[in-house]
Structure formats: C-alpha cells, structure tokens
C-alpha cells in the first residue's frame, strides 16, 4: 500500500464540501430568518403622525432594516457557533488540520455572506411588491420605493461586506473563547465592560469606530476597510489557534 499525498488546497476543497453538508442548518436558518424579517418589515412600519392647523396626516414609513438586523444576528451567531468546541469537533472532517479547517470554515462564511447579501437585497423587492400590490394604503411620492441599478450595486456590495465583517467578528470572538475554559463566561463580560469603560472615558470613540466603517462614502475605500479588517480578524483567529489541539 503506497502513501497518499494531500496538499492544503485539496484538503480545503474537500473540507469545504464537507462543511456545506454539515452546516446546512445555517442555510435553513438563513431562509427562516429572512422570512421573519420580511414579515416584520411588512407589519411594523414606523408610524408617523403630524397635525397642522387644519390637516392631520398619518403615515407609515416602511423600511427593510428588520431583514438586515435579523440576518446580521444570524451571521454573528453562526460564526460564533462554528468555533465552539462541540461544533468544531463535530464538524472536524476526517482528513485535515487546524489551518485547513479554519480556511474551509472561512470560505464557507464568505460564501454564506455572499448568499445572504444577495437574498437580503432581493428580499427588499419582495417587501416592496407586497406593499404595493397587497395593501390598500397608497404610496405618496416616496422616492425611497424605487430602487435603481446604482442602488442595487451599492446595496449588494455593502450588505455582503457588512455580513462578512460580522462573521469575522463572531469567528474571532468565538476562537478567542476557546483559548481558556473560563473565557466563554469571561469574554462577554470583559468585552461589554470594556465597551462601557471606553464609552465612559471617551464618549465619541464608539461612534467614531462605527462611523469609520459605516460613514464611509467611497465604495472602494469601504470595500478595503472591511476586507482588511475581516482579513486581520480571520488571520488572528488562525494564529491564536495554531497550537490548539483537536479532539481532547
């Protein structure tokens, strides 16, 4: 019997397919989360009420933020779950090492972000179509109803990158918690405590951080910022777990 060879790219390729089977639940939950998001977008508009001297106006301002918020949670939570000890071991395929396992997970998350981004953008059409055809209320002016090609491109790129960033953050936090048994309990406390402290010392810091990413008005720079950040987070995840032993 001769020895077989396995290189990293072959291992990652095989593992990626394995991950797609193992994490099928992530795909089902994406669809469920999206449907719930569409439902909430349709039933819970922001209601506005104004009175002037002789005229009262009641308006419902719809948006698709619910879908984004729920799908963001989906991305964050699934990325964290992926790194938990149990999931990590359950999804550890037959042949591979920590690096190939990480890479396969990350490629899967990138793919999941892309799919999630596309369906999220398409779902905002579903909401518009439902509101237009199936509700009696009339749309008045509402320039936000119309999505043009530029909106679609910007929206799709942005939302994919947004999910990718959340996946990277979740994956990084999850990996950090695996360094020590106490960290799953300690880390959330430390992170939240740190955020509160920073907010207390420097009020603008958190706003500035959010602004740094989400206040960016150039698509190329935005893309760079997110890709570099996600890359650093993923690389850190690989680095801090390179000595981690599997299957204790």
């Amino acid at each position, binding site marked *: 019997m001769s020895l077989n060879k396995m290189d990293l790219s072959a291992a990652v390729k095989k593992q990626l397919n394995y991950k797609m089977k193992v994490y099928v639940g992530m795909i*089902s939950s994406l669809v469920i989360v999206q449907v719930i998001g569409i439902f909430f977008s349709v039933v819970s508009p922001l209601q506005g009420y104004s009175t002037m001297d002789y*005229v*009262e106006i009641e308006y*419902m301002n719809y948006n698709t933020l619910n879908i984004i918020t729920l799908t963001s949670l989906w991305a964050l939570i699934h990325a964290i779950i992926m790194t938990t000890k149990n999931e990590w071991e359950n999804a550890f395929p037959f042949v591979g090492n920590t690096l190939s396992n990480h890479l396969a997970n990350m490629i899967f998350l990138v793919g999941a972000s892309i799919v999630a981004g596309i*369906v999220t953008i*398409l779902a905002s059409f579903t909401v518009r179509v439902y509101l237009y055809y199936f509700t009696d209320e009339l749309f008045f002016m509402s320039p*936000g*109803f*119309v999505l043009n090609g530029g909106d679609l491109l*910007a929206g799709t790129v942005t939302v994919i990158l947004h999910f990718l960033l959340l996946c990277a953050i979740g994956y990084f936090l999850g990996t950090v918690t695996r360094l020590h048994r106490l960290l799953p309990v300690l880390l959330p406390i430390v992170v939240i405590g740190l955020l509160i402290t920073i907010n207390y010392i420097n009020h603008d810091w958190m706003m500035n951080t959010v602004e740094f990413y989400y206040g960016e008005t150039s698509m190329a720079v935005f893309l760079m910022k997110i890709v570099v950040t996600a890359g650093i987070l993923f690389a850190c995840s690989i680095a801090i777990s390179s000595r981690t032993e599997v299957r204790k």
Partner: protein
Amino acid sequence: MSLFFTILILLVIIGFPFLLRRLQLSRFGYWLLGGYFILLIASVVAYTFIPTEEFADEEELPTEMTNRIYLVHEILDQGVPLEEFEQYKKKEWEFPVGTEESFSLYAGPDYQFPVIIIKRVEDQEAIHVDYYEVTPEIDVEPVHEEGEVTVYNHSGELTIEVLGYKLYRFNSMEKGFPFNQFEEEEDHSWIYYDVFDDERMFYITIPADIELNVDPDMDVHWLN
C-alpha cells in the same frame, strides 16, 4: 427584460438541482434556499411591473414646493392685488354696521386662529368678510374630511369659527441601509407639511370710521 428573467428563473430551476446533485448537497436546507430564491426572483419580476412614475424621483424632488401659492405671503410681502386670487375665494359675509361704532373680533371655541388681513376702506357701509382657501393640488383624497367655516355677528361681536379637520393617510418607503451607504438619503418628511397643508385666510374690509378690537391671540395683519 422579461426574457432575461425567464432565462434566469429557468436557469435556477434547472441549474440549481444539477449543482446540488453534483456537490452531493441534496439536502432540505438547500432546497429551501432554492425555493426562497425563486420566490425572490418572482417578486423582482413583479416589481418591474410597478410603474415607477407613481413615485417621486429623488433627484427631481424639489427642495421646496415652489408651485404652491401662499396667499398671505403674496399679498403682504409681494403686494399682489387680491383680485388675482379670486378663484380661491370660498365664502363671503356682509355685516351692516348700523349704529354701532365699535366691533370686537373673536376666534371660535376651537381656538383655531386663521390668518386675518384687515383693511380699512372709505365709503363702505358694511363689514365684508371674505374667506379664501388654498388646498393642495395632489391626487390624494383625505380619508376623513369635515369642516365648517362660519362668521357671525352677535351685537357687535364678530366671531370667526373654523371647525373640523382633514385627515390624510398614506405610506412611504425608505431605502435605508445598505442602499444609502454611499450617499446621504434625504429626509423628505418635511415636504409633507408643505404638500398637505391647507392655507386658510380671511380678508376683512371695514369702514374707515369703525373701531375694531381684536383678540390679541389672533394672527391679524392690518393693511393700513
């Protein structure tokens, strides 16, 4: 366009199962995703049938409603003669002066204080009250409308009563994140105030030698 979507849907229906077989991914979650995707594409197709002209174009949306006429502004600031606004006159009243030398002007019990312009006119034996109303030129019908404008004279006390209101109900849609990531989305809600508001104005002419006491809360402009 419809050809493109037909091809796209066919591609998904044929290509997706093939892809799943190929990758041995024939699992419930992926079928669910495929079904959801077809639903989404279908709604995009339905979306293309919505006439976009019904919605205001963001770029063409005026920064202020220039096509509106603001009576008070035109008359008081621009000095446009009242005769040009004859079409907006809705009602008029005339109260003979008789022996009274002074009148008082009150607002009705609703505390609605319309704008009132008062002018003293020589050679006039009665008090004329003209009521002008400018309504918005939009094809949105109010869901509720009631209103009664009356002016009456009770032994020298002129009372202006404006009762009732109009209710408009409508939807709007915001693009929101992520569509507005790279460009500031304008807040258009202020426009509604301009668009929906009714302007109501009373134009009162009184004989020159009559004294008229006005409730200090009322928004009154004297033309002379």
